[in-house]
């Protein structure tokens, strides 16, 4: 049974999407298998782990402002905690900065950035990045009540329905399909961050936006919650993980970092971090996922 992997990354030309899917699946399977075997090895080796990542240099890690994952105004978030944990565990110096998500992907690809967090993989991204999953979640469509939409199919058909996304974001399969379709119809407004999207949603410039669980706090604000409804995408949860640049990090280093992440998951550190922000059940559901997607 194939586990669908959402696509996150740059805008993909529509023409070539068909060819990509097939290729993606095969390489994905291959990759998954490799990762599974590697993971097993790692798990086996985790107990006897003696060497950690090479800390000879300062690594760069970029965060992006995205709800509970990280809020620049409060300088807090799951990802920030996670990055600090990484620093602590690895013993390496990691310089954390704030960037737009788009820029993060650009620099990961070019090798100008070593790490980022909570990224989802797709075929294109797998060319230049490696991942170490630490949580998964479903995607939702936050939609205005007065848009009159009840099902996902309605959004596609209604020409007046505009949706807002963050530049370079990819989501789960159905969400991607919806976004791609609406993009083709010129009904997608991009943004550099969530805040303008909320504003736009409130002012009915857009009627919907994709959201994830860590957007809840903002969404829970009365203003937004009153005028909106959440519709779940009928896709399985998408794993998110540590993004490692293939260009800047050699494979064995990446493996070490992945082991590190696995350790953090295994010993409940990740869950602990999540529980700081989410209700325990939700945290559990996000953190507990099948190891290999």
């Amino acid at each position, binding site marked *: 049974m194939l586990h669908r992997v959402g696509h996150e990354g740059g*805008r993909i*030309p*529509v*023409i070539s999407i068909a060819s990509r899917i097939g290729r993606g699946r095969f390489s994905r399977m291959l990759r998954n298998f490799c990762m599974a075997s590697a993971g097993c090895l790692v798990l086996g080796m985790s107990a006897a782990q003696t060497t950690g990542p090479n800390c000879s240099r300062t690594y760069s890690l970029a965060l992006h*402002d995205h709800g509970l994952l990280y809020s*620049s*105004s*409060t*300088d807090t978030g799951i990802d920030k905690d996670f990055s600090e944990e990484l620093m602590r565990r690895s013993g390496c110096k990691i310089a954390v900065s*704030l960037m*737009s998500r*788009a*820029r993060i992907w650009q620099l990961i690809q070019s090798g100008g950035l070593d790490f980022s967090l909570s990224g989802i993989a797709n075929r294109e991204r797998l060319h230049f990045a490696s991942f170490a999953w630490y949580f998964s979640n479903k995607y939702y469509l936050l939609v205005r009540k007065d848009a009159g939409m009840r099902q996902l199919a309605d959004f596609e058909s209604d020409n007046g329905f505009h949706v*807002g996304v963050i*530049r370079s974001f990819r989501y789960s399969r159905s969400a991607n399909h919806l976004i791609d379709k609406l993009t*083709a119809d*010129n009904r997608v*407004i*991009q*943004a*550099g*961050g969530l*805040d*303008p*999207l909320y*504003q*736009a949603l409130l*002012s009915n*410039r857009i009627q919907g936006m994709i959201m994830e669980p860590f957007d809840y706090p903002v969404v829970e604000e009365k203003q937004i919650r009153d005028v909106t409804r959440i519709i779940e995408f009928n896709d399985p949860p998408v794993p998110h993980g540590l993004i490692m640049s293939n260009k800047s990090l050699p494979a064995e280093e990446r493996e070490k970092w992945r082991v590190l992440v696995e350790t953090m998951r295994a010993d409940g550190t990740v869950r602990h971090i999540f529980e700081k922000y989410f209700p325990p059940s939700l945290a559990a559901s996000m953190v507990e996922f099948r190891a290999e997607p």
Partner: protein
Amino acid sequence: MKRIRQLLLPLAILLAGLSVTWLAWDHEREVSEKALRAQFDFSLREAVSRVEQRVAGYEQILRGVQGLFAATGKLDRTALRNYIAPLNLDANYSGVQAIGAEEWVPAADKNSHVAAMHHAGFTDYTIRPAGDRTAYAPIIMREPYVGRNRTSFGFDPWSEESRRQTMEKARDSGMPAISGKVMLDLDRESSAPASFVMYLPVYARGLAPATIAERRASLIGWVHASFRMSDVIASLYGEQPQGVTYAIYDGVELSPQTLLYRSMDADEAPHKASISATEYLVVAGHNWMLKMDAHDDFKARFSRNAELQTALTGIGLSLLLASLAWALSTSRRRALQLANQMTSELRSSEEQFRAIADSTINWEVWWGLNGRPRWINPSVFEYTGYTVEECMVMPDLLQKLVHPEDLARVVPELDKGLQGKRGGDLEFRCVRKDGSMFWLSISWAPTHDLNNAFTGFRTSGRDITERKLAEAELRIAAVAFDSLEGMMVTDADSKILRVNQAFTEITGYSPTEVIGKTPRMLRSDRHSPAFHRAIWESVRHSGGWQGEIWNRRKNGKVYPEWLTISAVKSDDGAVTNYVGTHHDITERKIAEERIKELAFFDALTRLPNRTLLLDRLKQAIASSARNQTCSALLFIDLDHFKTLNDTLGHDKGDLLLKQVAQRLALSVRNSDTVSRVGGDEFVVVLEELHQNPDEAAIQTKLIGEKILGVLDSPYQLAEVEYRSTASVGATVFQGRQYSIDELLKQADLAMYKSKEMGRNSLRFFDPAMQTAVLERAALEAGLRKAIDAGQLVLHYQAQVMLDGRVTGAEVLVRWQDPQRGMVPPAEFIPLAEETGLILALGNWVLHTACTQLARWAMRPETAHLTIAVNVSAQQFREADFVETVCATLTSTGADPRRLKLELTESLLVDNVEDIILKMHALQEQGVEFSLDDFGIGYSSLSYLKRLPLNQLKIDQSFVRDVLVDPNDASIAKTIVALAQSLGLGVIAEGVETDAQRRFLADAGCHAYQGYFFCRPLPVEGFEKYAQAFDSIDTLE
């Protein structure tokens, strides 16, 4: 239908092509759109990226400044100046209007702050807006200190709401924060450009506050950079992107108030943007909205613009393919059309002639220089039965159509046409497809093309068959006119127009004498006017008349002619001429007379023949009955006429008859009729005799004897003088006593009687004669029956030799009639000879004799016996006589050598050769011949030498008187000697006495037959005699 089918394929191709084109166009359009969109998105992303990076760049500047102040912990103006100056803000960081700092002045520190400022040299420094607030954050420095930046310090952004919020945000987060759209303090004009300010907090030296509270506590001020949006954007691009306009709005609302920047083209952009997009930027925690519109320029620049080309190409190709397919499918038709067009152009000059030629009934042929027909008009079919197509493919048209006999004449003439000469009136025969013939008259002329070059010649022909026929008929008529019949042509008024040579010959009139006159001049008086009128009535009524007419010749002679008059009518039925043909039928009339004569007259004697006789006789009877006068019928038979014929010849016989006829004709009166009814029989009818039969008889007798006397005179038959007599039989009748047949019979009988009485006499019919005739007839019938009924019986008269030994017998037939008794042979033999019964009789005799021979042959004592059979001349003359005898011998099984046939001398009169042949034939079989009655007939001694005889029989007349008459004795002796010398056997007949026998024996005749020895006996008697004689012989 074909046209539709022809259309189908191109149509299908067109549809397919158009479909593909549409698909390609649609695809191209999509791709183009997507490419354009992608290009647009790229532009958008690029713009966003540039803005973000620029702002990030600005952040770095401020951080530098922040670091500068944080390092000293003081907001040092000089340090700022020194820091800013080398940055070369204008060039490197255009867009930055000014970089400055605000000092955090809580209310309590206000006065000291102002005093410090005054102290620093800014004497008129005040915090603006004036007033007491809880805190102040006045601008205390601004670099580069040029231009507007020299506006006095002291403006307190903390007093302005949006700035304040921004400053608070920056203070609390420690991160740069951007304000919304503001009007810079240094811009005092109302139409200041849109600007924003970025603030970065400066905390007390050495402190890195981590919480909000710490940050607030350690705040000493801010550094800020102020930007004019237009300058910022201007610094982003070296040149404006083509075809896109964009606007940046503060926040997420699109309104004139929030507009930060609009690219210049947007002012004059009334036309709708083709692509537009909006993106929200988050710069330093602040939301901007970038709205980008692509216009036609953009589309023109980046659009692939290929869809139109694709569509056009596709449509073009489809049309091309479709038209190609259409062209291919109709190529043939079009090729034909083209060919037709070409040929029609080629023949344009001939079309005029053709139009005329086609409509003519003439047969037109256009010949090419190669002597072959180039074109033939459709009339050829009516003329010849061949269609145009058939004619065109003929290898040699002339040879096929022109009559072979005329071909040699026609070809050279047409060759002249090939040389460019004109010609005409060439008449010749043509042969149609069905073999029939017609006459054609052609004329020909050369033909030229548009450039007057000689291209051949054309012939135009007319059917002149009728004319030729008419000519032929005229010739025939002309010839016919000169026939042997006299012909006369008159006009409708019967005026003679023309006569032929024969006319002149018959009538004696020359043409000049009759032309202009009417046929009336030929009329004779023989016919009544009514007759002539009737003729003309018939001509007028039925167009002609035919018949016999007596006309008058020029010399006055009237002659009979057979005249035919025909009326000649013109086509409309009116009579134009009369044609009369006649021929002289004088000769015919004479011939008719002759025929009539022949029908009724004997050719030789010119006397009435039997037919006319009967007619005359009938008239005589009728006249006799009418007038009660008697008439007589005389049968005159020339005596011995047959002998004359045989001896002197038929021509003499004819002469005799003619002379007899003449004499007879002279001997009777005019009212009497002399006729010839047979070979030598004449019949005379005497009419208007006395009414008294006896007197009439006397008259008849006188006339009859006169006739006898006349006929008795000698005749001069050419060189021969001849005397002939006649036997006349007469019968007198009155009225219708007897029928014609009876009368004839009576006269005939009388004539026979006359013959019997000695000839040369006249006998009247006696009823008693009838009886004799009847009796004779009865006898004849009886004889006929007798032959079949076996009433005949053979008697055998022994023929003995020497001493009386019986050598054989002569058979004599006897008739044992039950009624009459034994009829003597003298009675029935002549009758048999006359009636021809002798043949049957003779055959019966022969058969019976042979049968007896066969019987005798079986007994040794009789086996040697011969039988002599009398053969009549009639019998012998039969053509199959030999075969009959042989057949009889074979069927009976008799030995031919025992058979003797006795011939009489009368047989030898005629056709001896035939007789000799037959005798030889039978002699070869072994049959012997003896000549009976030798010496008394016409026997010529030369016959004896020629005929293959075996024996001579001395006639009994000689034998009877052999002792008495020395002549007979001599003769008998001579006969014997003759026989002996010729090597023939001899037998004497009628030996009645022994003395006779002895005499004969002395003479040398040793065979005898007669009563002395034996009378004719039936076979039993004979056999007895034969045996007795033998026995007696032995006894002696």
